[in-house]
């Protein structure tokens, strides 16, 4: 069955449409004027203006490895992050710490630690799962490169982003 949509009954002033057109023109010129005199807040012009100082503390940017206060890479190459990583972006090749080293009790260190930033989905599961608090998601978000190889963050790059982390659990230092 066909449904008849009732048309509104317009009086002669509305059917002239001129007041409505004038009102519309007034609205657009008001917006125009507000933009000209910079009274309207507009989108940030990204590369020149950045919102970086306002990023929240829980912001999840690029994952990075950190060193502790002694300068040691905190990662012990347990490979939990490699295991948990949903897109399998992390690749770790563990190495052994020699007996004579100051940190011999740690036993393992990451010989190679690669995160493929093309694959990384910034989920933060690696940070969550890490027993050593060695991997953190930092606030870097502009990860770019011309090739896929450039987009792989190797260990030195990860450490460079990560820097030194103070004030978290350091269970290896207090043992023995």
């Amino acid at each position: 069955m066909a449904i008849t949509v009732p048309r509104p009954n317009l009086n002669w002033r509305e059917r002239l449409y001129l007041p409505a057109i004038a009102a519309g023109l007034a609205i657009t010129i008001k917006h125009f004027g507000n933009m000209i005199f910079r009274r309207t807040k507009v989108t940030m012009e990204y590369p020149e203006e950045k919102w970086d100082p306002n990023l929240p503390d829980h912001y999840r940017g690029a994952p990075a490895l950190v060193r502790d206060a002694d300068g040691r890479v905190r990662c012990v190459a347990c490979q939990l992050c490699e295991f948990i990583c949903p897109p399998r972006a992390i690749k770790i090749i563990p190495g052994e710490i020699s007996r004579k080293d100051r940190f011999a009790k740690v036993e393992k260190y990451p010989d190679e630690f690669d995160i493929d930033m093309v694959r990384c989905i910034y989920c933060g599961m690696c940070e969550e799962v890490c027993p050593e608090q060695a991997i953190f998601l930092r606030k870097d978000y502009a990860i770019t490169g011309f090739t896929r190889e450039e987009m792989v963050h190797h260990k030195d790059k990860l450490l460079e982003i990560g820097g030194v982390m103070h004030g978290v659990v350091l269970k290896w230092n207090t043992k023995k």
Partner: protein
Amino acid sequence: MDYFFIGTSLLKIVAMIFVVILPMVSYAVYAERRVSALIQDRLGPNRVGPAGLLQPIADAAKFLLKEDFTPATVNTFYYWLAPCLAMIPAILTIAVVPFGSTLFGVPMVIADINVGILYVFAIASLGVYGIVLGGWASNSKYPFLGGIRSSSQMISYELSLGLAVIPVFMLVGNLRLTSVVQYQIDHGWLIAPFIGDWSNGAKWALAIPMIISFAVFLVAIFAETNRLPFDLPEAEQELAGGYHTEYSSMKFALFFLGEYAAMISGSAIVVTLFLGGWHFPGIPDGSHGWIFGLINIAVFFAKVAAIILFMMWVRWTLPRFRWDQLMRLGWLFFFEIALVNIFLVAIILGYFHF
């Protein structure tokens, strides 16, 4: 042979096209983008050069470098002819418009012919062929619909366009556009013919039909140049771009620029007929020194720019008409209003014995 006349005419033609019209067309596109952005609370193109002022050059380079693709099923001859036909009439119309008084004794009009406005209508109505041929030669549904819409729309609104200017020439008594400007210098601009003659009631009465005439003419120019709210031939949402759907690269650019050139020539006609042409109260004409000649030209193009900005303002305010509404508006309202307006002017002129 009058070599001075030929030389100055050629100089005027070249200067008009390459120094005024083409840059103005490309910057009208830029202005359209910026104005639309500002109206919609955006910023618009502001990356290329200071405040994005080199954007038209980047656009031109992009258009020239794009692949010029010709679909296999088109009627090649008309397909190539259509963009030219869309651009040329718009530029030709400028020839009879007086865009300044005199500069070093040379009148600032390319062809001061005594059938001025008839020439304008004759050439401007050729503009429809570009669109119709473009729509037909593309051999595709949407351009075809756009071409059909365009032809009926342009023919319908040419009637009110023609009828709206008749009052002007009843008053001036001459079809030459320079004499229209001269009349306005002597008697005040035609949208306000009482200026300089404030106490004359007859002039005040005359202002009413002149303003009606101006409004009808302006709306008809909107329709003739396919501007919103009358842009049915190229309705993006309905026709995927209308008559230029199948065009690419510089051929598309010619259609696009032809529309803006038509806007400029239409605005120039409006300014000449109703807004006093190059005249501004208090500024003498070019016979008092070349600096005034230049100022007159600047005044003319400032007025043209104002009309173009008004067109943009309207475009980004009003929604598109439906097809039957457009036809009803053209045939049942503007045609009648313009027709009655002629009689109104005739009565006023006859009653007050101008």
